[in-house]
């Protein structure tokens, strides 16, 4: 089974700023890869160039060593010959065909014998729980049902690669959760390589084997959900992933805020070799709070601050600390035993502090 390889891929529409630029990405066989990024960052465009619905401006796309699109080599393989399936955000079901006809369309096209066709269509519809709608028209289905028909329509032709463009974004929260689980199951069951587009970090985290974070048309980081979360490659990734968002504290020489100073000092002390640091990132959930002074630890940053606010979020609490004028958000799942205005101690493990240089690139340091 093939890898999808995008090398130096750029695409501009109408001489505007490129929708994607210089993208290098390898989607491995059998992988569930999420393209994650804010809307308008070029995720759909990336899917569409892989599918062949758009051609490249520069660069090259290969699936399993077969070049599909390369201007330099004069090659462009049309979408219908690429062996990829694409599920549209709008589902794009054919309104004039019944569910069964929609799903069987690809097989009829391939002149699959009726018996086998029936069997495959039946299997996919059953797997997706839509067999009872087989004679309905798309307009008679709910959003979730339509979404499953759209998925079934592509799954039934057993594509090498399945491309999904925000397939869950039109569903309500509950259905979304259910479909997420279903997608994961389908991925396991069919073993297809999946490229999944979403702007929902939570969706990306729960579903994918690897995530590619994009912003303004370029790739920011590719890695497992864990890597993305725990070692963001740059400021953008750090700030885009995580909810509540990461606390970013500028570390500039002579900065007048107390937290900044504290951290700055701390850094100088703890990471002697590291300079050129522009900012520090502290995830709200990696900060521990305590009323009494915790025992000192050389592998921890320990300080104190005033509680500026407590926001219960149903089982969790977001505590806003005020450290000499700069806010610091902490997320905790233990009920706070302090009130607004009181002083608390906070502690962050050395290894949970993210350092970024003046250009916003992650600074790695030893010892973590």
């Amino acid at each position: 089974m093939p890898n999808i390889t995008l090398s130096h891929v750029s695409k501009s529409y109408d001489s505007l700023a490129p929708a994607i630029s210089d993208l290098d990405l390898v989607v491995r066989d059998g992988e569930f890869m999420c393209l994650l990024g804010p809307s308008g960052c070029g995720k759909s465009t990336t899917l569409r160039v892989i599918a062949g619905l758009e051609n490249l401006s520069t660069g090259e796309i290969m699936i399993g060593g077969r070049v599909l699109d390369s201007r330099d080599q004069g090659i462009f393989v049309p979408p219908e010959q690429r062996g990829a399936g694409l599920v549209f955000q709008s589902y794009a079901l054919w309104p004039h065909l019944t569910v069964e006809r929609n799903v069987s369309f690809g097989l009829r096209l391939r002149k699959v014998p009726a018996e086998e066709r029936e069997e495959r269509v039946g299997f996919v519809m059953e797997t997706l729980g839509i067999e009872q709608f087989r004679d309905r028209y798309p307009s008679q289905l709910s959003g979730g049902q339509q979404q499953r028909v759209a998925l079934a329509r592509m799954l039934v032709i057993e594509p090498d690669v399945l491309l999904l463009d925000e397939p869950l974004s039109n569903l309500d929260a509950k259905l979304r959760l259910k479909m997420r689980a279903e997608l994961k199951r389908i991925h396991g069951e069919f073993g297809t390589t999946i490229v999944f587009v979403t702007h929902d970090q939570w969706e990306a985290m729960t579903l994918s084997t690897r995530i590619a974070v994009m912003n303004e048309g370029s790739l920011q980081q590719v890695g497992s959900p864990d890597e993305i979360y725990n070692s963001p490659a740059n400021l953008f990734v750090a700030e885009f992933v995580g909810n509540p968002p990461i606390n970013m504290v500028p570390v500039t020489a002579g900065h007048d805020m107390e937290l900044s100073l504290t951290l700055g000092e701390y850094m100088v002390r703890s990471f002697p070799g590291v300079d050129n640091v522009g900012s520090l990132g502290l995830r709200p959930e990696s900060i521990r709070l305590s009323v009494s002074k915790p025992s000192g630890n050389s592998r921890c940053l320990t300080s104190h601050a005033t509680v500026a606010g407590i926001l219960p979020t149903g089982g969790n609490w977001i505590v806003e600390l005020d450290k000499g004028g700069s806010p610091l958000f902490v997320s905790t799942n233990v009920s706070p035993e302090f009130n607004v205005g009181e002083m608390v101690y906070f502690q962050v493990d050395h290894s949970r502090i993210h350092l970024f240089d003046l250009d916003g690139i992650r600074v790695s340091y030893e010892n973590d």
Partner: protein
Amino acid sequence: MKEKSDLMPSQLAEHDKSTSSTGMSRSACLNYHFKVGWREPTAIIGALMVVLFAYLVIVPIVTLMHDAVEVQFGDARRAKSEVGAWTFYYLNRTLASPISQILFWEPLAHTLSVATGVILISLSIGVPLAWLLSRSDMYGRRWFATALIVPYMLPSWTFALAWRTLFRNRTVGGQQGWLENLGFTPPDWLAYGQVPITIILALHYAPFVILLFGNALRSFDSQLEESARILGAKSGTVAFQIIFPLLLPSLLSATILIFAKCIGEFGVNYLLGLPVDYNVLATSLYRSISSRQSGVAAVLAGAIMLIGIISLLVDARLVRESRRFVTVGGKGAMSRNSPLGFYRLLATVFAALVFLISVGIPLLVLVLSTVMKVPADFSVENFTLDYWIGRNLETVALRTGILLTPDLWMAAWNTLRIVGFASLCSGLLGLLVGYVVVRSRVRWISSFLRHVTFFPYLVPGIAFAVAYLSLFAVQRGPIPALYGTGLILILALTADQMPYSSRAGISAMMQLGKDPEEAAQMTGAGWLRRMTSIVIPIQKGALVTGTLLPFISGIKGLSLFVVLAVPTTDVLTTYSLRLIDNNYTQAANAVVLIIAAMAYFGTLAVQNVTKTNLADGLGG
């Protein structure tokens, strides 16, 4: 192509590494361009349609322009030059010679004064009616909303015929007019010329104002006027400072559209202007064609075209300007109906009166005229069905009732054949244009098609017909002379209807979007399969509308046919005109009634089938 793409990567990749010659990469680039842009029939169809419409729209107009400045056959002596030489003779003759007064300036003045009158009257009838229909509690609003639009569904010269039937005097031959028979002889100014032309066209175009202005009123947010009231503004202030400026664009738009239509109006002017030599540009053009002055005709047609183009460009400009206002009346705009109180009955009477004058009486007169032997004699023995189904009548020719005349059925068959085929063509082409415009990867093709198919909209039908005449009157290259054939009518009609059908096609395709087709592409469907299994079945409805609407406007069309049809290709409209010319008043009226009925019921049917209302299909 598939094999190629399987083969090429490895070979070419090697090449690229070893030699990076620019020649190689240019050919690769071309190859790529070809595969992306031209690999599908979309681009080829697009290119074919570019050629087709260049030929159907641009070439005739260029030929026409050319005819205006080139010595025509038979004019060599007068133009003091050889046939085919470049000349100012026609421009000079039409615009600056002693005869130019009769050829151009007087008709121009008549055209402008008729248009002005038409605009004034139709606005003063249409604006109050639009308001009553959309913002008041007048009785029977729903009924009137349809009834008052009827004049627009019927050919305008239906009413000219009714007028002639009523007011005709001895200036023209044939049957007497009703009034004359009742003892009152209408003077010429009332029977023919500017007055009746203006009144009839005004009544015909008032529905335009009702529709356009009514739409603007309905989308107008009454919260705007209410907030002004709350701020303490008086009604007059509200009307002039808030409502009027916001509604002005729609009024101006209606005005200009009426103006543009008046410029090209032929039938009414022909029926009511000719007897007293009252010429407008369209009839002057017709005369110069009839007298085979094709050079002069070309200049006149060019002038009409120019006026049409300018006024519609002005309109486009205004519409663009008025977009700024559109946001003002938001979607949820609530329009409240004003109670009329005491005036409620009066308003209803006014609307009923307009209906009577513009629809009721004319149609009744026409119907009665076809079943009465002597005009305006209401005794029982005067009524007869002879003019419809009689045999062995005592007339010189046309000795059977109209329904038994083979010529009628011939004309009806021609109408069906020619208009039907042209409508089918334009409906299909419209959809194809829509498809190419939305899907083509070659950008200039889509933008060219969009513009070229819209262009005939700017050209009044009679000028367009003259352009066709000048292109197809003689053999040009491999294309034989088409004048006198049904084909020239089909071509001209198709091109003339393209603005509507291509707009319908483009909007249908836009609405469909490319997703359904791309989804089929992703399941592996090639172009032909996508067209036959996905695109065309989904667009069935749009195709039906795109065919029926042009069909309806085609069967009542006159100005194209009057220039291009010959007796063997007579359609119902030109047939009735011939009957009028030969003074078979009853028969002519009967034919016009048949056309009117077809247009009316056709429109209703389309509205029912497509669940649209005429205001959308009107399209200006």
